[in-house]
């Protein structure tokens, strides 16, 4: 606290303060997420940093975790795919959630949802990043330890998402669960529409390309 307060640059200080607030959020989820949006104690920049760290964690996990716990078929790994595999679900999930929560009288703006989503990923970074190192000093038959802790971090994140949903939109627990389920359906609809769009565009392009080829072959 003291060190952060001493930083002169106001912007940097604000980001670091909001980043530090994530530690409070994950230990006091209900209170934390309420203040995050209503008391302006969080920032999008901090959420961006946490998401970036989560992406790094995901990639480092593949690269540095001991082979005893994760087998990676490197021929099939694409870093871009890994990055998009983290970012796209977040973005699409936020869009779907925002669209639906508006219908369900949710109070959160898109910015709020994104911020809460980023903060909810904190345990993923905090637990899984050190676990990469720990996996290299434990043996396969001690693996129960590893799997339990990884499972614990996932459950923690899930509970944070739940609390974020309740606090950001001012929902009751039942309504939050309902909106979450609806969000999953919404994500599927968005993915379906995107695929449809892409296939239609590629069909349309292919039509003009073949038209062009036909004309060229006729002329020459």
């Amino acid at each position, binding site marked *: 606290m003291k060190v952060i307060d001493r930083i002169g640059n106001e912007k940097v200080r604000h980001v670091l303060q909001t980043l530090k607030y994530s530690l409070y959020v994950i230990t006091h989820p209900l209170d934390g997420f309420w203040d995050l949006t209503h008391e302006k104690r969080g920032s999008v920049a901090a959420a961006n940093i946490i998401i970036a760290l989560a992406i790094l964690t995901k990639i480092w996990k593949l690269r540095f975790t001991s082979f*005893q716990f994760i087998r990676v078929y490197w021929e099939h790994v694409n870093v871009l795919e890994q990055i998009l595999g983290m970012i796209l679900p977040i973005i699409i999930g936020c869009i779907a959630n925002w669209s639906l929560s508006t219908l369900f009288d949710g109070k959160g703006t898109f910015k709020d949802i994104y911020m809460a989503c980023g903060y909810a990923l904190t345990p993923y970074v905090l637990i899984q990043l050190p676990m990469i190192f720990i996996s290299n000093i434990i043996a*396969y038959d001690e693996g129960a330890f590893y799997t339990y802790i990884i499972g614990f971090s996932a459950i923690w994140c899930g509970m944070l998402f739940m609390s974020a949903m309740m606090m950001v939109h001012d929902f009751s627990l039942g309504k939050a669960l309902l909106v979450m389920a609806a969000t999953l359906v919404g994500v599927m609809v968005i993915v379906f529409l995107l695929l449809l769009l892409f296939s239609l565009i590629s069909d349309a392009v292919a039509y003009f390309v073949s038209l062009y080829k036909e004309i060229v072959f006729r002329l020459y």
Partner: protein
Amino acid sequence: MKRVKKIFTFFFCLLLWAMLPVWPDAKAVGMYTYTYDYWGDERESPAAYAARTFIAGNMFGIGDFSEPQGMFVKDGKIYVCDTGNNRIVVFELKGTEVKFVEEFGEISGDVENKTLSGPNDIFVAKNGDMYICDTKNQRILHIDKNHKFIKELTRPNDETVDQASDFLPQKAVADSSGRVYAVVKNYNKGFVEYDASGKFSGYIGANQVTFKMSDYFWKLISTKAQREQMEQFVPTEYNNLFIDNDGFIYATTSTFEEYDLLSDKAKPIRKLNSLGTDILIKNGEYPPIGDIDWGKAGGISGSSKLIDITVLDREVYYALDMTRGRIFGYDSQGNLLYAFGGLGNKLGYFQYPTAIEHDGDNLLVLDSKNAGITIFEPTNYGKLINNALDEYKKGNYDSSADYWRQVLALNGNYDQAYIGIGRSLLRQGEYKQAMHYFKVKNDEKNYAKAFKLYRKEWMEKNIGWIFGIIIAAIVISSSVKIARRIIWEARRA
């Protein structure tokens, strides 16, 4: 000018010579051999077996075989069931040299029907007694080495058997006490077992019937017609068997659903103990099912269809696949050693393989369409693998590792060699190196063993300065605190 021409001609000839294809040693045809790696990808390997000779009936002036179905090899003698010609042909085998001994289609002794009709399989016991599946005569014949009738085994007089049905024995073996186990067509309760006196004593090795909740559910909601359809479920019908030196029966089957193969529910290869329980060891990354990657090429698709099996003295077993004409070799732990062979017309390839046997380390494969036997001999590479396995079985882990190193020099993709070397390094206390070898081939269980020992060793070596740092950190932080407090107190005062 003339000289230039000469030199030019010389180099031209040299060029032509260099362009000639290299002819392989005609006597040793190496063939495409492969293994599967951890990920189930096919990895090419040097040839482990080479086809040496092909023998057909007309080479010995006894006429071609006609659809031969069964073969047995014992003490350097090959017994061929020449099914279409209703006879048994016996050869003598010395290395890869084959000599004709005799042929017979009739037996002597106190029995009504003395001729063989469509014999499908033969088994020869230690004392020379023969058990012949005389299929079209609906009996299993037991004769002595002079072809004199001893007894015949016929349709079991049991209520489980429809007495009006045909009794068509396909394959038979006998154990050391004279019990006979037979594969009979359309009998799906396992092997038919006869006691030493020739009396039917039951079935062995039937599939356990397991109750599935999902089946019950589907039955609840389906119509009567659908239920009848479902009940036509066919239990395992074995297609071949082999009895090893310890009296265990190795069996193959090809009645299963293909999707059950990789999850090891189908169990195309089984090792049955005297109670009929499958005790085959499967420590490999994949269960012994033949091909893992099936593909679709040349009009062939689907899984391997294992139709015969032979077990060597070192408990290495070779299974014959009819789909692609391949031979799969597995060690006693169920690891794939290599697979080779194929369908084709060259030496070492088959058209319709029906039986596989071994003589020492040599393999013999009977082809019913080619009407002949192909004899395979291990190559240098195959021998190295055999030696490594032998030494390991004897407990000489270090010399086994030496052989694995030689194997590795010939085939850098060979998983078993890495693991074999790793095991030996582990025993020698070279934990770090052992870890490397296990890691390369994703063997996490052995890696964990080496790693734990390495971790212990490392801790013992470095415990001094680790504690040093911890103590130093505590001392420094507490002294800083004390100093601060003193300064604070001094300022206040």
